[in-house]
């Protein structure tokens, strides 16, 4: 195991931020920590990195106990914090060079690595720019470059795409994929389930400091009872018709709001066909109709009773 967290408990006075958290991250995977704001993702990361004191538990990285003085472990870890953590007084190049230099003492090697990192985040045209001259997206890319320049074996990214434009987000996500393909193990925390869906091999869903679900995306989705989500555009649906739809054997839940009928189907085949048949049989006119497979949000919703972004 690259990272092993056992029974981690962290309190902020009365607030239980991490409640006997258990995690295992395997070598070479992208491990997602998914949860709403305040679920304990960043706290977990900061404890894993030995930045935060914790009340109980054990943390091992590369099969060694992690601690503030574990420099042999730290040299192989890269961190990209949630907030941009760079020096305003240094240029893009100097920032990356400084952080890389804390890990790599050989000047020539460092120069190569810094150039590679700049290439990696596509900041070649901004090498001599100071951070305050960069847009939010470019700043995030600089933040990432500072964390990856020394080529860590384990990279921890704490919500690196918050407040980032779609273009920069895609750039960041594809970069993370690329790093993983090069052999870097990645822990990725986010509250954007789309990113987890796109990136992660395995996911731990956190809520109130606890792991509420853990597994591959497929395993998580298989855990829940709903199959697909069917959305139908209907301009006029009577409450009696809605009741009849709810009574269908394939329907778990149905809601009608603002000319849109949303049906959460039970697991099974041909659910959408049955709905279309029902609408036709009852002469209910409808417009667009489409089906979506369950998402991690559905998993979270079913387990906790709330949306990921609540």
């Amino acid at each position: 195991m690259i990272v092993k967290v056992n029974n981690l408990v962290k309190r902020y006075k009365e607030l239980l931020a991490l409640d006997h958290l258990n995690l295992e991250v395997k070598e070479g995977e992208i491990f997602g920590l998914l949860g709403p704001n305040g679920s304990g993702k960043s706290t977990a990361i900061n404890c894993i990195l030995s930045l935060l004191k914790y009340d109980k538990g054990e943390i091992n990285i590369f099969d060694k106990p992690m601690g503030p003085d574990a420099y042999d472990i730290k040299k192989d870890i890269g961190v990209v914090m949630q907030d941009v953590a760079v020096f305003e007084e240094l240029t893009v190049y100097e920032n990356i060079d400084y952080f890389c230099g804390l890990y790599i003492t050989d000047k020539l090697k460092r120069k190569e690595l810094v150039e590679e990192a700049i290439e990696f985040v596509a900041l070649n045209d901004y090498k001599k720019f100071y951070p305050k001259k960069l847009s939010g997206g470019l700043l995030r890319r600089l933040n990432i470059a500072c964390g990856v320049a020394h080529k860590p074996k384990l990279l921890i990214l704490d919500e690196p795409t918050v407040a980032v434009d779609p273009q920069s987000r895609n750039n960041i996500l594809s970069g993370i994929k690329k790093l993983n393909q090069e052999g870097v193990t990645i822990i990725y925390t986010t509250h954007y389930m789309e990113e987890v869906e796109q990136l992660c091999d395995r996911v731990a869903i956190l809520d109130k400091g606890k792991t509420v679900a853990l597994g591959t995306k497929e395993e998580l989705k298989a855990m829940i009872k709903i199959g697909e989500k069917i959305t139908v555009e209907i301009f006029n649906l009577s409450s009696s018709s809605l009741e009849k739809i709810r009574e269908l054997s394939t329907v778990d839940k149905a809601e009608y709001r603002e000319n849109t009928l949303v049906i959460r189907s039970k697991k099974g085949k041909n659910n959408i066909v049955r709905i279309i048949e029902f609408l036709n049989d009852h002469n209910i006119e409808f417009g667009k109709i489409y089906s979506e497979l369950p998402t991690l949000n559905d998993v979270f919703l079913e387990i906790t009773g709330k949306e990921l972004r609540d």
Partner: protein
Amino acid sequence: MFNHIFITRIKCLLRDKQLVFWSLMFPIVLATLFKVAFSNISASEVFKTIDIAVVNSKYYQENVGFKGAIDGVSKEGKDKLFNVTVTNEKNAEELLKNSKIEGYIYLNPEVNLVVKSEGLNQTVIKTFLDDYKESASAIGTILASNPKAEHANLVKAATTFKEYTKEISPSKGKPNTTFNYFYALIAMTCLYGGFSGLKEITDIQGDLSKRAARINMAPVHKMKMFIYSLCAAFLIQFNEILIVLGYLHFALKIDFGNQLAYILLLSFVGCATGISFGTMISALIKKSEGLKVGILISTTMIGTVLSGMMYANIKYLVEKSIPILAYINPAALITDGFYTLYYYNNHQRFFINISILTLLSVVFCLTTYFIIRRQKYASL
């Protein structure tokens, strides 16, 4: 690793415009303003010849000695003491009433002075008359006992003052009451090194900034980071002090005496105290950087005001009424260090100041160390 961290920290400190303003530009601007203000004060303190009147009477005309004395101090030249108007009593009274003269003298036959208020000029006139009376009395007594004595030599001997002691300043510096203001200003500049110290701690203490949290994740010992960063801060601050000293000495002509090695030693220790004070403030106060800067500025300003930057005599008042405050106020110690180098002929007090400053620096550093050595934080 030392070079890497040291050079980067120097870049960060030099490119921080706010820091450079407070630690270098502000003292230079303030010193210039002091110089302009004190030049006007000096001009106002230049001695001006005093306007007096002497009532022209038969006693005055007959008193050859007094007439000679008045002529002597109203002769054109650098020793001219009085502008003398010889007039009648009524006119003299009128001149005094209209403040055209500071006082008038009449003889009846005794020498008398009439003034309408008390003040420095009136005291000068009175002192002159007292001296005259004393000398005239001495000459009269000698002539009575020895009528053969030569009058001219007697007058010369009685009116000539001879110094039997000689003042020697080890620094060969002339006393100047305004220098203390500049010494206090240098003390303020030394203590403004606290800004660098504050910044350095903010950048290595994980619960103070995100940058520091990232740096804490690097495989570099925190104490190494602390020491290397402080070296950079010290180099910058010491050079800034040298620039300020150079500006004061060469541009504003402020005299520091001729003991350059001791001046550098004092600046060196002063910088160390200032920087370590800033590190302690930064480590102790877990609030916003703005608040820390505010606390640093206010404590430094209070310290320098108490060391005489705004009113020179306050330094002596503090030393007299609350001596302990003078001993724990780094600004007062630095100011006093420069003062003793300029005026004193031994270094005992100077080294007491240096020792206390060193002790304070050690206390500030140790306090910082005990706070930042905690390597995990309760919250970030």
